[in-house]
C-alpha cells in the first residue's frame, strides 16, 4: 500500500478473494464471479501471484467499468482493491 493511502485512506474490503497459485484467466474469472455476488459500492480485495494479473486486471476493469482503487505489490504477491460500480 502506498504511504499516502496507508496514512489517509485505509480502505476496508467487504470481501476477500484468494487467487494465489492460480494462472490467467482464473484470477479474472474468480474476480468476476465474486463481484456478481456483491452489492454496488462494495469493495473486493483480491490476492494473486500470477505475473500476468496486473495487466489482466487493468484491462478487465477498463472493459467492465469497475473501479480499481489500488494495486499493491509485496514481493511476488499482488493485492488488488476493486469497487463494484454497477
Amino acid at each position: 500500500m502506498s504511504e499516502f493511502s496507508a496514512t489517509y485512506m485505509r480502505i476496508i474490503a467487504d470481501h476477500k478473494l484468494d487467487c494465489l497459485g492460480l494462472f490467467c484467466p482464473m484470477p479474472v474469472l474468480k474476480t468476476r464471479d465474486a463481484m456478481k455476488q456483491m452489492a454496488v459500492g462494495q469493495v473486493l480485495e483480491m490476492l494473486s501471484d500470477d505475473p500476468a494479473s496486473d495487466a489482466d486486471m487493468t484491462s478487465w476493469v477498463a472493459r467492465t467499468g469497475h473501479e480499481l482503487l489500488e494495486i499493491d505489490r509485496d514481493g511476488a504477491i499482488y493485492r488488488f482493491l476493486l469497487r463494484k460500480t454497477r
Partner: protein
Amino acid sequence: MARSTASSSERLGRLGGGVTRVYLDYAAFSPVDPRVVALMRPFLEGGVGNPAAPHSLGLEARASLDGARAKVARLVGATAPGVIFTASATEANNLAVRGLARRAAGRHLVTTTIEHISVLNACRHLEKQGWEVAYVPVDGEGRVDPDAIARALRADTALVSVMAANGEIGTLEPLREIGRVARARGVPFHVDAVGAAGRVPLAVDDLGIDLLTLSSNDLYGPPGAGALWARADVKLGPIVVGGGQEGGYRAGTENLPAIVGMGVAADLARAEGGAEVARLTALRDRLFEGVLERVPRARITGARGAARLPHHASVVVAGVKADGVLLELDLRGVAASSGSACNMASGVPSHVLRAIGCARDELEGSLCFTLGRWTTGAEVDAVREALPAVVERLRRLAP
C-alpha cells in the same frame, strides 16, 4: 484420395441430433478420422495389455506403443526414441518449458507475446520461482523478428520457445531463422507445432528444432494424447512422477488407444497432407474473399497467403462483438469461434490481438474460421451468405 466421403456437416450433424451444421471450428476440436477410429477399436475393446506387463499381451502393447512412436517421429523427421507421449499438447508444452527448467543451469527464457496460454503460463510459473522471461513482441501480422530473439538472448538463457503458427491469427513464424539464432548461441529451441504439423513442412533437423510439441486431435486423432519430441542431448526433468513410463519423463500408464490413434493420424497426415493443404488453401481463400468483399469494415488478422496456416481464416470486424456474431451464426447452423476460448470466458481482450496492435473497436470483433478434412465448398459458401447479414443486423441493433 481414399477418405471418408461424409462432409463434416453430415458427421457432426449426426452428433448434434440431426441438426445440419456447418462446422468451421477445427482448431478447437477436430472430428476423429474414421480410419483412426477403426484402428483404435481393438485397443479399447480388449485383447491388449499394459505396455509394462510381463506377458505376451504386454509385449504386443509395447510393440504398438513403439510403432506409434515411430509414426509420430516420422511426421516431423525426428528420431523415435525422442518421442514422449503425454495426455495433451498443453502437457507437452509444460514438459518442454518446466521440464527443461528443472535441469537447466540458466535462469532466463526467451519466448514471444503470442504463444499459446500453456507456454505463457508455464513461463509465468517459472517467473514465480525466480526465473526471468523475455516476452519478445511481434509485428502487426504477428510475426516474430529473429533478430529480436537474438537480441533477447543472454549468457544464462536456457531455452527459446516460439510457436510454429499462431492459433488465433494463423501466422507462420520464421522457425528456420530463429533455429539458426538459437543454435549459434547453443540454446535449445522449443517449437509448439500445434496447428502447423501435418500442414507445413516441419523437419526438426532442417529447422534446428530441439523440442517439438504435437497434438493428436489437431491431426484428426483422438483427444487425450499429445507428444513432446526431445533431441537426445536435451536434458529434461519429469513434471509428472510415478512409475517411470515414457523413459521416466512422464509417469502414468500410457493411454494406448489414444496413442495408437495418434500414430495412425500422423501417418495419414504425412501421406495426405500435401493434397489436403492445396484443397484447404483454396477453400480458405474463397472464404476470405467472400467475407472481405461483403462485410464492410472487416479485415484479415495475421499474415496472408503462404505465410499463414492453410486451413485458418481470421478476421476482425470493427464495431461488432464476436460473441454476438457467433451466437447469430450458431442459430443459422454455423459453428465458428473468436480464436480463444480462454479469453471468451474471462472477458479480457485476447493477448494476441493486443500484441498485434488491434484498435479498440476491433478487440471484441475477432472471428476465427478453421477448416478441416471434411470441410466442403458448400460450408464455406454458407458462411459467405450468413456473415454479411448477421453483421448488418447486429450493427443496426447497436446504438
